[in-house]
């Protein structure tokens, strides 16, 4: 019996979609007097339950607004779920939006240390991996250039190189295999595949069913915030194909 590394239990996530955002005092007072403080409750996720065992790779499928990204953010700890709980073992590396901790005034070199710290790495660890990060990103020439002069592809390359320097137990991928140019894309896919060989557990969101089939062993379909079906990749992807060709 393989060990369970991720357990998601009864997770629900509620958002208040106020018709107009109330974020100034005037609005607040006016609206509470005129009783216009309307909140539309919206459950982005409802009663999500599943577990993943070590080495399993699950693809999360669903149309726009089905709750895929919200689910990944709940698992990564960015959102606190309104109800339910997420328990995980080991280090999670979220490759959600690469370079979220970057500062545009900082140079590439400074950003490596800053983003590394955001991901919870120690200074000594970054020191020891610095050359490896620079080499993988292929940005040696631009290390002392402020990040605001980087192209978006360069930023993603740097972000990817920093985030994947550790060997995580759980890897969260949200459309990141389309980072950078063709050459870097190949390199990053190779890196992720080598992590998979070492038995990392993967949660993967992509709109390309091809990619999901190639990478994942399991799949789940999300529909309006609930799990429509979950199971092995072939049955679920067949159902998904039927679902999207249906209308």
């Amino acid at each position, binding site marked *: 019996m393989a060990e369970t590394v991720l357990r998601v239990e009864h997770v629900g996530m509620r958002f208040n979609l106020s018709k107009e955002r109330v974020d100034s005092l005037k609005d607040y007072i006016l609206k509470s007097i005129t009783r216009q403080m309307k909140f539309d409750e919206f459950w982005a996720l409802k009663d999500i339950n599943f577990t993943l065992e070590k080495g399993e790779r699950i693809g999360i499928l669903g149309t726009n607004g089905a709750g895929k990204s919200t689910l990944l953010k709940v698992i990564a700890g960015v959102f606190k779920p309104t109800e339910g709980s997420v328990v995980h073992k080991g280090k999670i590396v979220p490759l959600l939006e690469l370079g979220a901790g970057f500062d545009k005034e900082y140079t590439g070199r400074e950003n490596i240390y800053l983003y590394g*710290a955001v991901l919870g790495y120690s200074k000594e660890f970054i020191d020891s991996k610095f050359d490896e990060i620079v080499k993988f990103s292929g940005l040696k020439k631009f290390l002392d250039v402020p990040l605001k002069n980087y192209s978006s592809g360069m930023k993603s390359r740097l972000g990817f190189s920093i985030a994947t320097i550790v060997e995580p137990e759980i890897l969260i991928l949200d459309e990141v295999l389309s980072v950078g140019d063709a050459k870097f894309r190949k390199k990053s896919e190779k890196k992720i595949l080598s992590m998979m060989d070492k038995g990392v557990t993967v949660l993967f969101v992509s709109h390309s069913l091809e990619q999901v089939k190639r990478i994942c062993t399991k799949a789940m379909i999300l529909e309006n915030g609930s799990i429509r079906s979950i199971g092995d990749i072939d049955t679920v992807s067949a159902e998904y194909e039927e679902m999207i060709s249906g209308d």
Partner: protein
Amino acid sequence: MKKRIDTFWRYRNLLFELVKKGIKLKYRRSYLGIIWSLLEPVMTTIVLTIVFGTLYGNKDHTFPLYILSGRLLYSYFAQGTKVSLKSIRQNSAMIKKVYVPKYLYPLSSVLYNFIIFLISLIVLVLLGIFTGNYPTLHWLLIAFPLLVLLIMTFGVGMILATIGVFFRDMEYLWEVALMIVMYTCAIFYYPERLLKSGYSWVLTVNPVYNVIINVRNIIFHEAFNWGCMTYACVFALVSVVVGVIVFHKNQDKFILYI
């Protein structure tokens, strides 16, 4: 509790990096860089001395030192709280995408401004020598009131950071509040006349003024005012407790508002 300490320990490097970033970026792209943290108080002190000293006929040669001490402490409090107030919203891009303990943002804001403030204290020493009120080892005692000021700024900063997420108006309201704090800090006037009038409370309730009094007492070798010290300590502790509770209770909602 142990889990919290572990988390803090794991992210200590991030706190360090955020403090470093604050200091580095504050003066980046200005020609004089960090020297501005010395030059700026010197220049404002010259202006204030001319206006409230020379033009008002105050001949006391230590008056510039009096002004500078008050002015430095007040501007730390003002800067620290203003930056904390905006800290959550300014880092919204990061907060929305990766998990980090959110109190690190106001905490690092308060800390990096404190380090810049400590550097600017060099000016105080130089001006002490210049005006003949020589700095002695006794001056080291200002560490205690300054520590109280740091805690107070953090506490108030945490409260403001929380309010700032939900009400943008707070930024403007706080500017006005800071103006009141400044005028009731006795930065550029002697408080004696006001203290004897019926309005003395406007000074004595101001926690920053209570810190400034004791820093000045130390600098000018006068008796330490324990009443003011106690008041400032109590205010600092209460603000930290309230700040931490308010922040902690609301932090999970931040992401829905930024």
